[in-house]
Every structure is written in C-alpha cells, then in structure tokens.
C-alpha cells in the first residue's frame, strides 16, 4: 500500500517512476507520519534515527523517524512537544525538519569518524553511520543511523541518495505529482496583480505603462520561430518580419523596457560563431540592420553592450558561489571559530561579492546610457537568457519605481526571467545534471538585496521576501522555477494535461498563500516602505515630459537624419572586427564615467520613487546576513539586530494608524475606548536578529564565546614582544623620545 497524501481517502495512482518499492510503515510509525502534501508518496523510512543539533545547549539529539518521499526528506520527532511550538513564520509546504529533495545540496556520509562526500556514482553497499545533509537554503542536518536496523538504515541511505542526487527526468519533479492532486489554483484576484506575460494583454499593459513604442509579435505563438523566445514579445518597429527567423530568433532585439524619454532597453542572444567569410559578412549585415532598427526606436542613438565579454562567465559564477556557500554550511562550533579568524579574506577569495559588484556596476553603466544620454541599449549575451536577465532586471529596478513594489517586482521576474526564457531547470540543477548549474537568479536576488539594504525605504518588499524567494527556487513545486523555457512549460503542460485528461496547472511561486498563511505573509512586506503620496504622484506626472511628445516632434527629422548617417558610419567602422560583440566594448573610462554619474546622482536629493543607484564601494557591498547566517546559532544576536529597528518603526506606524482611527472615532463621537489594548500584547521575548527565521528565546542564554584565540595566528612582528606601557615598571617618569 501507498502512504497517501492528506487529500482524504481519494486514491490517485502515483505517476512517478520509482526505483524503490514504497514501503508500508508499521502501525507504530503511522501516527508519526509527516503531514503529506497532495501527491506525496513515501519511498522509505527508518526508525529510530537521531537528529543531532550542533546547538546542543538547546536540546541535544532528538530521536525520531526519517522518511524519504517523492518530495522531501522528512524527520519526524518522537517528541510530540516540538510540534506544538508556535512559530511566527511557518512554511506550509515543509517544516523545519523537512528537506525538499531538490533542496539537497550535498550529502556527506559518516564512515567511522571519516567523512566522505557522497556522489551518485558511488553507491556503495556499505551505508554510513550517519549522514550530513547540506541544503541549498544553507541548513545543515546531521542524522545518525546507528540505532536503526541495518536493513532500514541501508534502505533509507540509498533512497535518500538516489532521490536527491541521481539524475532524473523532468517528469519526476514533485510539482507534477502535486498539481495532479490539487484543484486548479483559483486565479488570484487581488489587485494589483502580478503580470504573468503569458498572454498579449499583459504585454500590452506593460507597454502602455512604460509608454513605449514597439511592435508586438504574435508570430511565435506556437514557437515556430524559436523555442527559446517567448510566445509574445515586442520588437523595434523597424525590424522586418523576414529577418526574424534568420537565426532562429537569435539576434532579434527583444524589448525589455522603455525609458520615459522614449529610448528603450532591448536584449538579444548573440549569433552563432562562424568562420566562413561569407557567413560572417551576412551576420554583420544582419546585426547592422538590427542595430539600426533599435536606433530607430528613439533619436537614432544606440549602444550595444556585450555582457559575455565583460562579465564573469556562467561557470565563474557557479564556481564562486560553491566556494562562497561552503563558508556558511557549518556543522561544528570549533570550525566556526577557526574560520572566523580569516573571515574577510575567505569571503574575498570566493569572489562572490565581487561578482555582485560587477553586475551592479554594469547595470549602472546601462542606466547611465538610458537616463543621461537617452541612448537605446541592446544587451547582447551568448544565450541571451542569463546575465542579460540579471542586467536588464537590475536596470529596470533602478530606473522604474514600479518594480520596487511587490507585484511590480514579481512582474519583472516573470517578464525577464520566466517568460524571458531563463533556463531555471538546468541552472538550478533540479535534475542533478551538474554541468549546467549556476546560481544566476540567486545572483540577481543578491544584487537586489544590496539595493534593498542601501535604500530600505524604497522597496515595498522586505529582506525576508527575498530570502524566502531564494529558498523557493529549490522547492520544486512552483512552475516558476522548474522549466528551461516557456516552450518547455507550455509543451510539457500540454502533454501532461492530455495524459491526465484534464487541464493541469502547476502553481506559481507568486501564490504566496501556498507557502504562508496571512499572518506570515505580512513578513514579506517592508514596513519601512514609503508609498508614494498622491501629491507626489500628480507632481511627477506634471514634471515628466510625455515620451510620445518627443517622438512626435514635427521638425526633428532633418538634423537627426544626418546624425543617423554618422551613427551608421561609425557603426560600420566598428563592425570591421571579427566578432560583432567587439564593437562597443565598454572601455576603461566606463569606470570613471560610472563614478561621475553616481556622484552627480548622490549630490541630488534622494527620491525613493525616482532613480535609485547602488553605492559600489568596497564597504557598501555587504553579506546578505539573513540568508546566509540565519541558521548558525553562534551569530544570533538576541534582542538586537536591525530587526529591532524595523519592529520599532512598524509598531510606531501601527500606533499612528490607531491614533488616526481613534481620532476619526472621536470625531464621530464613538466610544473612545474602542480597541486600544491590542498593542499592549507585547512580550519581551528576545528575538534573534535573523527573525523571522531563527527561533525566539526567552529567559537567559549563554553568550557565544570564541573558543579559539589567535594564539600566534596574528603575526604582530616585533611589536608584540615589546613591552607595552610598562617599560617604566622600574622608572616612573615618562620617557619621552627625543624631539625630531
């Protein structure tokens, strides 16, 4: 028998391919089953298993049962008590002792005190005494299998390794089993809604909002032009239809966003590399036509920015991140304090922060072209769906306050990443084929976090939102993050629906109610966000020139024509390079120019609803502490951290709101005592600085005292041996050095 999901007694045939026969838990275990999700099926389980916590002050080891299902590895404690602890922020899909299979990063086996990295190829029969699971959301679990029966221990070990590390097919991703077993999610009716960009309406709405002037294409509705491009997209009006299919959609400038001046941001995949002269010439001519078309969008100025040449490669990003994250996957305290000594240089050698800075820097460069010079921009990248997504979204986030709202941001991610064709499936490595893994989307979130921490009043969403979003990437329930392209999504959902006999719908991550209840969803909003007041809105409307006006200027054409000619001339000159991307390689002066641009911006009064630039200086680019340090007990500041500040502001704002209400009531002469007691319910629980992720603690606790001192680690040279002030132990008078 299968252990079934919680959706009543309804029996659904599991549609995954299983290597291990699902096992029937014995009766004693039955009651300790985790709460299964619809479509979730247990592969195997073992009991008793010890979960070891490195924070042994708190509870030490916990006895329980370890399950492996088609969704997760789940540890269910024998102690019922733990379940009752009320957590302010709970995920409905998985608990604190659950690891979604796609969230497993690495598994180590504990073989008689020797730790070995388990890889899928090495499936030894000898199972380890314990396993250590490193998760993509930076949690670390240690399970001891010593107490479990030999057979069960072996089985659970093999099951976990098989299902979380071995390559699998898309069809095995839990989202498919899940969506078959849930009712089609009701359309979210809340306004404003997240634009999904899966239909023409959303695209039109976006174009209308930005007042751009491009041509909508429906020609790829059935992916006949390209399987990499969205079904619907905008291109410059001057692109000829016959050019679209020339290189399977590569080289076609896809509209991203229009600046209020009229210039716009486009992106494209670079053309395939060719050797032969005639092809090369054809490519050059083709790209020239495309550039001209982009230039024609506004004022005949265009800049092509090649990202493949100036930014780190996808492999660099992956390598850097895998070194970086290792510093946070800590499973013993000694290791923590030893690594503390070289902390800054360790961070630096991973180069992760430097990659973040490079991306932000590049985005500021592009922003400068758009904002200061009103130049059309064409982002070019080999695949056109990785760094160009990072840069184009960052540019839009800096220039357009709409994307700093929650729905605006989600729409941006839909437009640039999901529909834009970022290969989430391979970049997130959901199918365990390591070779194309790279945390490009996470890199984008990191950059957004930098902006958020530098300008916390400008964003409607919170740091917690970004952290939760980054966690959601590896949950594999959301359609947002499991496909390689819109084509794959549309085609596989079509096949699925056909086999299933009804229309299937994998939920989007933006349906936050799947993960969090109403109260928890409040944490996704930034209490510091300053909404734009009505006055400001109207003022800005008056100030900003309508972009249309500029385009419709009657006499602008003759001089511009000349300009256009010149521009093409220079473009031609630049096209003489062997590779198209050479043309407009940003020079070293870009650095200086960006600084100047930033300085000029900084001099001006800061408008949170206007242009927002990041400070790129060394000290300003920081570590996303909430995401990376939240599970490490040693670094929890109880009763402190920025969260205290945020909470104070939140409660003050609430108080203000209540006062306002009270005022209104009093004016209406209602009962003045109405509801003013609510805020009194505040306890002095010492909240961690990583709230809402780490648990609260009441009462006293031990401070984290460093265990290893720097005995001889710090090389102080001869100075350390010098007596300090006590040179005068025997001589009380001050020895003054001779005057210079």
């Amino acid at each position, binding site marked *: 028998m299968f252990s079934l999901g919680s959706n009543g007694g309804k029996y659904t045939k599991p549609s995954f391919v299983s290597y291990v026969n699902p096992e029937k838990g014995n009766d004693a275990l039955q009651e300790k089953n985790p709460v299964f999700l619809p479509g979730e099926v247990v592969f195997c389980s073992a009991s008793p298993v010890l979960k070891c916590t490195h924070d042994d002050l708190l509870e030490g080891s916990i006895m329980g049962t370890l399950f492996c299902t088609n969704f997760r590895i789940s540890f269910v404690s024998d102690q019922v008590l733990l379940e009752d602890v009320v957590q*302010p922020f709970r995920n409905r899909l998985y608990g604190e002792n659950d690891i979604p299979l796609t969230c497993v990063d690495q598994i180590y086996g504990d073989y008689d005190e020797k730790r070995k990295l388990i890889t899928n190829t090495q499936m030894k029969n000898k199972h380890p005494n314990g396993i250590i699971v490193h998760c993509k959301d930076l949690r670390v679990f240690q399970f001891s299998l010593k107490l479990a029966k030999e057979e069960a221990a072996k089985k659970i070990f093999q099951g976990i390794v098989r299902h979380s590390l071995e390559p699998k097919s898309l069809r095995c991703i839990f989202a498919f089993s899940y969506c078959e077993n849930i009712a089609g999610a009701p359309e979210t009716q809340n306004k404003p809604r997240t634009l999904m960009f899966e239909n023409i309406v959303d695209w039109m709405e976006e174009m209308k909002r930005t007042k751009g002037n491009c041509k909508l294409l429906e020609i790829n509705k059935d992916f006949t032009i390209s399987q990499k491009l969205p079904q619907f997209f905008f291109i410059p009006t001057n692109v000829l239809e016959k050019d679209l299919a020339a290189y399977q959609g590569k080289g076609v400038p896809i509209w991203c966003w229009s600046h209020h001046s009229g210039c716009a941001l486009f992106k494209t995949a670079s053309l395939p590399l060719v050797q032969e002269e005639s092809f090369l010439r054809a490519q050059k001519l083709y790209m020239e036509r495309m550039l001209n078309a982009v230039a024609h969008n506004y004022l005949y100025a265009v800049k092509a920015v090649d990202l493949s040449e100036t930014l780190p490669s996808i492999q660099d990003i992956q390598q850097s991140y895998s070194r970086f994250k290792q510093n946070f996957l800590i499973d013993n305290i000694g290791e923590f304090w030893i690594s*503390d000594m*070289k902390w*800054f*240089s360790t961070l*630096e*050698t991973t180069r992760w922060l430097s990659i973040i*800075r490079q991306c932000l820097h590049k985005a500021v460069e592009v922003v400068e072209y758009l904002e200061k010079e009103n130049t059309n921009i064409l982002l070019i990248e080999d695949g056109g769906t990785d760094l160009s997504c990072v840069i184009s979204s960052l540019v839009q986030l800096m220039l357009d306050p709409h994307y700093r709202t929650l729905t605006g941001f989600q729409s941006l991610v839909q437009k640039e990443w999901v529909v834009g064709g970022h290969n989430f499936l391979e970049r997130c490595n959901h199918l365990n084929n390591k070779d194309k893994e790279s945390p490009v989307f996470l890199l984008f979130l990191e950059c957004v976090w930098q902006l958020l921490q530098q300008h*916390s009043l400008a964003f409607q969403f919170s740091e917690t939102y970004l952290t939760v979003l980054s966690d959601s990437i590896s949950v594999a329930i959301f359609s947002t993050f499991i496909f390689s392209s819109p084509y794959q999504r549309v085609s596989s959902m079509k096949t699925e629906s056909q086999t299933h006999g009804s229309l299937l719908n994998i939920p989007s991550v933006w349906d936050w109610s799947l993960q969090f209840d109403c109260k928890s969803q409040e944490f996704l909003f930034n209490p*510091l966000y300053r909404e734009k007041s*009505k006055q*400001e809105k109207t*003022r800005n409307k008056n100030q900003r020139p309508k972009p249309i006006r500029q385009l419709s200027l009657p006499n602008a054409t003759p001089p511009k024509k000349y300009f256009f000619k010149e521009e093409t001339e220079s473009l031609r000159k630049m096209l003489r390079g062997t590779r198209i991307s050479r043309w407009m390689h940003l020079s070293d002066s870009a650095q200086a120019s960006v*600084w100047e641009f930033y300085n000029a911006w*900084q001099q001006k009064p*800061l408008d949170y609803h206007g242009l927002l630039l990041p*400070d790129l*200086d060394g*000290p300003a680019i920081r*570590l996303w*502490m909430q995401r990376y340090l939240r599970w490490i007990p040693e670094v*929890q*500041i109880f*009763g*402190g*951290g920025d969260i*205290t*500040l945020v*909470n104070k*502001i939140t*409660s003050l704002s609430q108080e*203000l709101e209540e*006062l306002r209400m009270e005022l209104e009531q*009093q004016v209406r002469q209602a009962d*003045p*005592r109405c509801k*003013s007691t609510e805020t*009194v319910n*505040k306890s002095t*629980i010492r909240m961690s*600085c990583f709230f809402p992720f780490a648990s609260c603690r009441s009462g006293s*606790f031990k401070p984290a005292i*460093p265990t290893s*001192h*720097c005995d001889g680690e*710090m090389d*102080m040279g001869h*100075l*350390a*041996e010098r007596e*300090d*002030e006590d040179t005068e*132990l*025997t001589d*009380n008078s*001050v020895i*003054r*050095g001779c*005057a*210079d």
Partner: protein
Amino acid sequence: MEKSGSADSLGSKRSSSRQPSVDSLTSTNTTRSDRSAHLRSAVSPDAASARTDLGAEVLKESSRIAEGELQLLPRESVQDTASDVTYICPFLGAIRGSLTVTNYRLFFKCLDKDPAFVLDLPVGVISRVEKIGAISAQGEVSFGLVCKDIRNLRFAHRYQEGSLKKSIFELVNKFAFPVSNALRMFAFEYGQPFPENGWKVYDPLAEYKRQGLPNESWRITKANEHYDVCETYPATLVVPANIPDEELKRVAAFRAKGRIPVLSWIHPETQATVTRCSQPMVGVNGKRSKEDEKHLQAIMDANAQSHKLFIFDARPPVNAAANKMKGGGFESEDAYQNAELVFLDIHNIHVMRESLRKLKEVVYPNIEESHWLSNLESTHWLEHIKLILAGALRIADKVESGKTSVVVHCSDGWDRTAQLSSLAMLMLDGFYRTLRGFQVLVEKEWLSFGHRFQLRIGHGDRNHTDADRSPVFLQFIDCVWQMTRQFPAAFEFNEFFLITILDHLYSCLFGTFLCNSEQQRLEEDLPKRTVSLWSYINSQHEEFTNPLYVDYANHVLYPVVSMRHLELWVGYYIRWNPRMRPQEPLHQHYRELLAKRAELQRKVEELQREVAGRAAVAPPEKAGSPAGSPVQTCV
C-alpha cells in the same frame, strides 16, 4: 540645520552644518542632516511643492556663502591669513583659496567653487606638519598635515622669495603644538559659558551610592585622598570592608604603580563584582604578598554566591610571562587559591598603534575595491576589536551568569583594563547606556582611573613618533559603536555622540581629555580653567540622542563577537570620503514618525478633553511613550 548661537559655533559642528562640500566636514553628521533635509522635502507628503523647495535650496546656498566666513570662538584670534594657498584634495583635486590660522583652528576656504568649499579643523588634530619636497618650478612649497582623525591634508603654498614673512605653515606648526612651543593650550583660553556644567557630571560618591555602596562587604575609603597610595588612582576608592587602610599600602607595594585591586562595579542582585588593578610584582623569583592574597580573598568572600574568583589578565600569556623579567607577572594559582587565571590575548599599545596606521593606509584617501576585505583583514583592526569585545563578554558572562566576582588587569591597568572593565559594565548595566551614564562611565573608568590621555594622544606635542601614543580610547569607542550596531535600541546616545567625543578627544577645545590622571587634573585646576566636553553635549542633548532608545535597564547585552557581525565603522574611519553615504535615513524616518505621533496624540487628547467635558467620561490612558513598550516585540 537652522541651529545658531554659541553652542553651534564649535569648530567641527559648525563647519559641518552648513558646509556642503563633503571633504570639509569635520563630522559625518553633516551629510546626514543635509541629506535628510532633502529627504524631507523629497518624500514627505506635506512638504512644500518642488518649486519652493528649489527656492529654499538657493537661499540656503547663498546663506552658506555668507556663512563661509570664519566665525571665531570666544578668545580665538586670527594669527595670519595667506591668500594664495592650494589645497590638494584627494577627492576633488586642487582647490585654490585662502588659509587662515588662528590659535584654535586652521580654516581654508574657496568661494569660487559652487558650493563654496570650506575646510575647518582644529589644529589639535594635527599630529605632524611636514614640508614635502623642494620648491617647485612655480615657486610653490608643499606641506603635508598628518592628522589624528584618519586623514592627511596636503597644501601647496607660493613661497615669497626674499620676503621676510614666514610661511603660514610655520604658524600651524606653532599653534598645533603648544606644549612643545611653551604656549597655552586653547582649552585654557576658551571660556564659553554653557547652561550645564559638565565637570559636575561625575560624582564618585553618588555613583557608588547608585550601585548600593558602601554596603556590609565594601567600604569607601579616602586612603588615596592625597594620591599617596597610588598617584594615578582617584581619591575615592571602594575596597573590601575588612581590609583596613594600612593594609592597602602594603598591597600597593605588590601591585605595579601601586594600582591595587578596587571595585569598579557590583551586581545589584548577586553582589558579584568587577574589580580592577595592575599586575602583581611577582618577578622571576615568584614573589608573594600575604596582603595581596588576603585582599583578593576578601574580594571573593564579599560575594556569597560563589567560592571562586576569576582573574582576567588582558595580555597574551607570552607577554604576561615576559613581564616577570621586569619584576611584574601574573598571579600563580598556588598563591591564590580558588582563583582561576584567564588570559584574554589582547595585544599591547604598540601593536594597536601599528594596526591603526595600517588601517589608515587602507581607507584613506581611497579604497582599493578589489582587495578591500583582505586589506581590511591585514590591518587586524577588527581582530583586535573582536578580542577586546570577547574579553569584555567573558567578564560580563562570568559576573552575570556565573555570579562570580572577577579581577581584571593587564600590565599597568590603565589601557586594556580600562577597555575591558568599561565595556563589561556597559554590557551589564543599562545606566551606562544612557547619555549621562556613558559620561559617568568615561569619567570613572577612564579619566579618574588614570588612562593616560595626554600620553596616548600627545595633546599639543610635536613628538609624533612617541611610542606612548596609542589609539586605546578610540578602540573602546569603536567597540561601543559595534555594540550600538548590534543593539540599535539599547543605547540612549547615537553615533554622532561617539564621533563628537572622538573629535574633541583631539581638538583640545575642552579640558575633559587633558592630562594623565585625576591628580594632574586637579593640579592644573582644569574644572576651573577649562570647559568640559559634557557641558557642550548636555546643553544640546537632542543632537546626541538616539530616537529609537528604549530603556530596558535590566537587560544584559551580550554582543556577538564573531567577525561575521563586526564591521568597519565607515561613519568614522571613512567619513572623509565624499562617496560614503551615511546610511541612516531610518533614524530620520523614525523621528518623523515620532513627531507625527506626538501631533496625533495631541489631537486625540484635545478631542478627549472635549468629549470628557461633555460626557464627563474619564479619558482612557494611552500607552504611548516609547519607554513604555519594550524593544523586542513579538510580531
């Protein structure tokens, strides 16, 4: 920004409040307040329209230029002005202007720039004036000023050949180092009256009374009234009740510089104490002192909760052992039964000085971005901060959680010991986290207990290579700042308060940080002849108040001392770099909310009075004051 009046005319403050050219700020706060003013106009809904804002901006601009004139403090006098000086700004390039030198400050201005550029700094911050290179082809001489506040200034000055007039930089040299030139420090001239007298902030008897002293185990002694037990200690000391004054002298003979173990702080509930002293004079032969052993036993016995005593030696064990050669050393566990000795591995003043020198190289004038973190690490500055904080944390933990008394010392007990005892007290006692409490802490643990400010800072002394100089007090303030970062609502004072203290540590405008000990301060009659820094601060305390402060006095703060949570104090060390934007709009935001709340509360009360007048219903109490609600609320 619209402050005026006498208090405002203090060098550093003033230049900042009206000076938009970032380089010239003597304090960071400026950019912040300028910025927030913009913020207010840009974001707040009830701000005037954009056009009037612009008008206001222009007005401000012109008034700035008018104010670009030097405003002298009482008894400040212009010594000379040179009109053709070029300031070589590392951020803005060469700026031509005029340079004025007074007996207190150096004032450079260039009105051609828009906005006008002003550089205004007390000559006290200058540690070295040096001529760089020979006369250039243009007949210019370059001068470099090395400052104590993490910046170097460079000027070029046309040299009038054949002129009898001395270079203006010779004047700088004269007034920056009054001690070396047999001049009086400006602090003795400056006689600005303030409504508050800061010299009265600390009254030892009142402070000990606040701590519940004397009690049955501890007595207040006047044995050092004439500073003959220990000349670097204060006149008022707290010692175990059963140790008579005569014995104290014998204990003093066994402690370096006579700095006997005395009480710094007592736990209000457990009676566990923090006591401080200098190293015992053990020497190579392992000398012992019956009186000293008895003294420590008495300290332990005064705390009924524990039968143990922890001795924290701030030094690395190697250095402590090396001190034996000089007659010093550390307590042996044979001689002091029930005592446990712990070394805290904090390095000496020379290591700290070198570390700060390296830090300055890394942050001024520009940061090398690609190696920022490893460069920062190579200075070891934060590593030292970590060790000091970790030491204080261990002390606080022993006293609070272990209910055990502790003795803290280093070699002389006036540098590392002061850092540790004061930081531990800051963690343990909420009083010291208030604006006045912190002043008491500095007066008590640093000034009265003889941290040698004159020697460590070298006020007015030309000898910049003096090996006694060391940034010990700066490190302490840095540690405090780290704590305020980790507990943003636990301190009544703000970052600007800490920066102001550091600015006036060097300015020599106030008498507070002059001299080396209480005895010297009395000899010099400083309270009569100079103004206290606290007079200035307490006369306009709103400037220095943290709007987020919540008094939760009984909470012990345990900061996290891991490098993961320590960061370089950009607002102090990198404040001269105009690109470092102070990141504190949140405080501003909070202030605005507070103001709004006050307004609404007022309205509510008015209405309530009205209603009450009509219906004779008692108005409900609104729990509104920030002090009423705890910081950590469960959302």
